């Protein structure tokens, strides 16, 4: 049982946030995580094996994700693959990070409005 507060890990590194989001709708193996991250970011982010598994290792150590049973993916081939899923703590950290980003977006929006008004650019 992880007793740490989610706020201790915030802000999350971008790679960890992407992996948490990829696992938010269920367990996935490495290739599925990579494909999901590409789809989420419109191919702006492509994770290589080194970045992906290095990040997964750190997330396992931090208790953000858990490894589930190794098995083949019926949609791909008969190779056995390691699957990962979000832990309870990981889900709480993801919620906290998303809330932090929403707050940041609201702040940025209000500042943008003020800044635009100050520069006399409002209304184009």
């Amino acid at each position, binding site marked *: 049982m992880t007793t740490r507060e989610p706020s201790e890990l915030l802000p999350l590194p971008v790679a960890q946030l992407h992996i948490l989001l990829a696992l938010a709708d269920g367990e996935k193996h490495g290739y599925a995580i*990579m494909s999901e991250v590409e789809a989420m970011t419109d191919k702006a982010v492509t994770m290589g094996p080194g970045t992906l598994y290095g990040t997964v*290792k750190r997330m396992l150590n931090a208790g953000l994700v858990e490894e589930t049973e190794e098995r083949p993916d019926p949609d791909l081939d008969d190779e056995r693959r390691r699957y990962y899923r979000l832990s309870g703590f990981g889900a709480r950290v993801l919620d906290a990070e998303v809330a932090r980003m929403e707050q940041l977006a609201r702040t940025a929006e209000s500042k943008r409005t003020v800044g635009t008004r100050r520069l006399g650019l409002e209304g184009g």
Partner: protein
Amino acid sequence: MTPSEKTYRAMLVAYPSEHRRVYGGPMIQLFRDRMRRDGGGLGTLVVWFQMGFDLAASAFKERMETIMVMKNWTSRWWETSVVLLGVNSVVFGFTAANSGFVGLSFLIGWVPAVLLLAGFGMRNRQRIPATVMLTVGSIGASFAFWVIYTIVLALVIVVGGLRSGKIGLRRAQPELAT
């Protein structure tokens, strides 16, 4: 296994061995998946470019983390070693003084012990004096342990062995039955 996979597998040597042991297999699998999806012609070059960059950046990061872990480990052993050497020097000081070697007990017993323990205590506050104390103390204590003890042990082995007849240049006589 394709030549690309073989090359990628060989390049994994850039990672620390523990990381390679745990994640080497899945990394090769992911490389294979990427090649299957995007490889072929120019695609192979693009994948290789991305993989090369990914490998260089992540291997460097993993190596640095391993070094940091080793640094913590070294730090723990460093502190333990200083304390042990200091305590051993105190013991040596007592032993030498009780044996009548008062000068020696100070030179390579008490003084190194005080320097080591004081340097250890000051290490976070006054770095330079602490470094000097620890270095001089270590040299003195090392002299006691590695020179004096070595000479004493060598003397015990040679002189004691000769006197007790356990060693010698003559053949050992068989013991007579009484």
